[in-house]
C-alpha cells in the first residue's frame, strides 16, 4: 500500500469545472471518504487518480511517483464500482481469481487458490465459491466484486459508492465489514459517497467537496464538531443542523447566523426559560421524537424523549446550547 497525494488537481468538462484545484494527501493505511452531493466532483477525483480521466493541471503522486503519464494498469490501483460487474459465466472462485491471472502479474496457481480462499473467508462467502456468479444475491455479488479488488495488493483501493445499490440492512452490515477488512489489512482506501452515515462510520478522514472544491478535510469528529462553513455543517448530522438568524435569540452573538444541531436545543415548558416556539408536528422515530417547531416564521427541528406527548400548536420554550456561529456568507466565525 502507498500514500497518495494530489497537488492542485483540476479538471473541466467543457464549460463545467468538475474538479478545481484540489490538494490533499491520503496517508498510507487511511480510509478516506470523499463526501458531497451529486455533481460535487467526487467521482471525477477518483477517476483522475485511477487514470480513467486525464488531468487538466496539477499532479497525482502514488507512493512518491508522479503517475500523470501512467495508464490505469500501470498505476496499480483497484477499483470497485457502484454496479457490480462480475463475469456471469464464471464461478465465484474464477471471478475472484481473475485479476490474479492477469498476464502482467503471472501469479502461481497455488498462491491464487490460497489468496482466493483467504479473501472468501474475510468476506464470509467461502461456501459460495463454486456457485455461478449469477446464482448469488445482490449483497453477495457486491461482496464478490469488492473481493475481486481485495485479492490484489494494489497501491490503493478506489471505491465509488459500492454499497448504494444494496438495501439498508445489507448496507449496514457491509459498512462494518468493510471497515474491519480495511483495518485488518491496513489498506489505503479512497471511498466516494453521498451517504453521510457511510462517511461518519467508516472514515478515518473525510474530505468534503463542494462544486469541485475540497472545502474541508479532517476526522469525522472534527468535521462534525468544527465545520468551517454552513455547507460543511449541513453535510453531517441527521436531522440536519438548524441555521437561523442569530438575533432570533436574546443576548449578544458572535455572528449573524447561528447553527444549532437538533440535539443542542434545550427544552422547557411554557413557564420555563427560553424563547417561545410553537410545535408544528412531532414524529415518533422510536428511539426519539423529532419535533418540528416554528419560531417567528423560522422552522426548527429538534429531538426529544420518545415518551413525551406534544400537541400541535402547543407552545414550548427553547434555549440554544453549544451554538456555532457563521457570518452572512456562511463562513464559520466562532
Amino acid at each position, binding site marked *: 500500500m502507498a500514500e497518495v497525494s494530489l497537488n492542485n488537481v483540476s479538471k473541466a468538462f467543457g464549460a463545467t469545472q468538475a474538479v478545481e484545484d484540489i490538494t490533499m494527501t491520503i496517508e498510507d493505511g487511511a480510509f478516506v471518504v470523499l463526501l458531497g452531493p451529486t455533481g460535487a466532483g467526487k467521482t471525477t477525483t477518483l477517476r483522475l487518480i485511477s487514470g480513467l480521466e486525464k488531468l487538466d493541471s496539477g499532479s497525482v503522486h502514488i507512493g512518491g511517483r508522479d503517475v500523470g503519464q501512467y495508464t490505469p494498469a500501470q498505476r496499480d490501483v483497484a477499483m470497485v464500482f457502484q454496479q457490480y460487474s462480475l463475469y456471469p459465466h464464471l464461478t465465484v472462485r474464477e471471478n475472484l481469481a481473475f485479476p490474479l491471472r492477469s498476464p502482467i502479474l503471472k501469479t502461481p496457481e497455488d498462491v491464487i487458490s490460497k489468496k482466493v480462499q483467504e479473501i472468501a473467508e474475510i468476506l464470509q462467502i467461502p461456501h459460495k465459491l463454486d456457485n455461478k456468479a449469477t446464482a448469488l444475491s445482490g449483497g453477495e455479488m457486491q461482496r464478490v466484486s469488492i473481493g475481486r479488488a481485495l485479492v490484489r495488493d494494489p497501491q490503493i483501493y478506489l471505491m465509488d459508492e459500492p454499497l448504494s445499490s444494496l438495501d439498508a440492512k445489507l448496507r*449496514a452490515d457491509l*459498512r*462494518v465489514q468493510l471497515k474491519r477488512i480495511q483495518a485488518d489489512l491496513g489498506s489505503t482506501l479512497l471511498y466516494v459517497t*453521498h451517504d453521510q452515515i457511510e462517511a461518519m462510520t467508516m472514515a478515518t478522514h473525510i474530505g468534503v467537496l463542494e462544486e469541485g472544491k475540497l472545502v474541508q478535510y479532517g476526522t469525522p469528529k472534527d468535521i462534525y464538531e468544527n465545520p468551517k462553513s454552513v455547507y460543511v455543517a449541513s453535510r453531517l448530522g441527521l436531522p440536519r443542523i438548524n441555521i437561523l438568524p442569530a438575533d432570533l435569540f436574546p443576548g449578544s452573538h458572535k455572528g449573524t447566523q447561528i447553527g444549532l444541531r437538533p440535539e443542542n436545543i434545550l427544552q422547557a415548558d411554557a413557564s420555563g426559560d427560553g424563547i417561545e416556539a410553537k410545535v408544528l*408536528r412531532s414524529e415518533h422515530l422510536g*428511539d426519539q421524537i423529532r419535533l418540528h417547531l416554528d419560531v417567528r416564521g423560522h422552522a426548527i427541528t429538534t429531538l426529544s424523549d420518545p415518551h413525551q406527548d406534544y400537541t400541535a400548536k402547543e407552545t414550548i420554550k427553547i434555549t440554544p446550547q453549544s451554538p456555532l456561529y457563521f457570518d452572512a456568507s456562511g463562513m464559520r466565525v466562532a
Partner: protein
Amino acid sequence: MAQIVIKNLKKEFGDFTAVRESSFTIEDGEFFMLLGPSGCGKTTTLRMIAGLELPTSGEILLDGEEISQRPPSQRDIAFVFQMFALYPHMNVRKNISYPLVSQGMPRAQVKAKVAEVAQILGIENILDRPVGGLSGGDRQRVALGRAIVREPKAFMMDEPLGALDAEFREHMAEELRALHDRMGATTVYVTHDQLEAMQMGDKIVVMNNAVVEQFGTPQEIYDKPATMFVASFIGSPCMNFVNFNGQLGPNTNELEMLGSRFGVPQTREPFEGDMAFGVRPEHVTLSDAAPFRGEVLATEYLGTTQIVTLKTAGGEVKARIPSNQTAKTGESVGMTFDPKTVTLFDRETGRALKSELNEGVLHG
C-alpha cells in the same frame, strides 16, 4: 372523507397466496402505512383497496359500503404511483386539469380548482410549463396535484418517494405529510422503508409473508413488538436478540440468562425453552462492573452518539451510547439492559411472550 375497513381480505394468484386473511381499520383522515419487505403483500393489499386487483375473498368497506368487487372508477379513490406517470405532451395545467375535464366539469370550475390545487402544492409559477423539463420534485408535485384535484375519498400511494435520492426524499416526505395535515384526507401509503413509515404514519401495519404481523401506532410498534420480525424490521440498528435457553415463571420480573440475572417487565405467561431477550440499542448501557460481558467488535461514530457492536455469549449486541464515552475494539466490557423495555420472544415461533409491557397490544 372516509373510513376504510378491511375484513379477512385474501388474495391468491394461482397457487401463490399474496395476502392471507388480513383485517384492519383505517380511520377517517389517517395517514396509514403498509410496511414490509418486498414480496410481503403490501402492494397487493393497496391494489385491492384501489380496485386494481379483485380479492379472492373478504370485504373492503369504504364508509360502510362494501366495494371489494367494484371497478376502480366507481370507488372514488385516487392512486399515486412510484413512477409519476404524467402526460408528456401536455403542460402542467393540462396534466392537472385532465381528470376534471374528462369528467365533463365546466371550464370555469376546472380553472378555479386547478388554481386552488396549484396553490396548495406551491406550483403556481410552473402551471404553463411543459412537464418534460421539470425537476423530480416538481414532477412529483404535479402527479400529486392530479390526484388531489378530483377530491377523492381516499388516496393510495405506492412508494411515491422510492425513486428519489435520500436528501430530497426526506424533504418530500415532510412536504407530503404537511399536505396531508392541511387536507386531512385518508391516505394509505405503501413503503418498505421503516423510517419513512415511522416518520409519516399515524398508524402502521407491518406485513411479512402475506400476513399482518402487527398493527398500531409507530411508538407502540417500536416499544412493544409482537414478533421478532417486527422487532428486527423496525429501528436502525434494529432490536438486539440475546439468544438463550431457560425458563420463565408466570408472574416474575427477573430471569436467569447465560449465568447472570436480569430484570424484565412482569411476565404474564410462563415459558420454557429457546428464548430471545429483545432489547433496543439505546437501552443497552456499558458498565465496567456488570457481570454480563462482551468483546467490542466495532464502533461506528454518528456525531453525538455512536453504535458499539459487542460479541456476547448470546450473540452480537449493538449499543447506542454517547460518542464521548470510549469503547475500544478488542476490549472486554460489561453491559446492562434497561429492564422496563425488554421483550422476550419464543425463538421457535418468533412470538413475543406476554408481559406487563405489551399486554393490551398483543392479540390472541
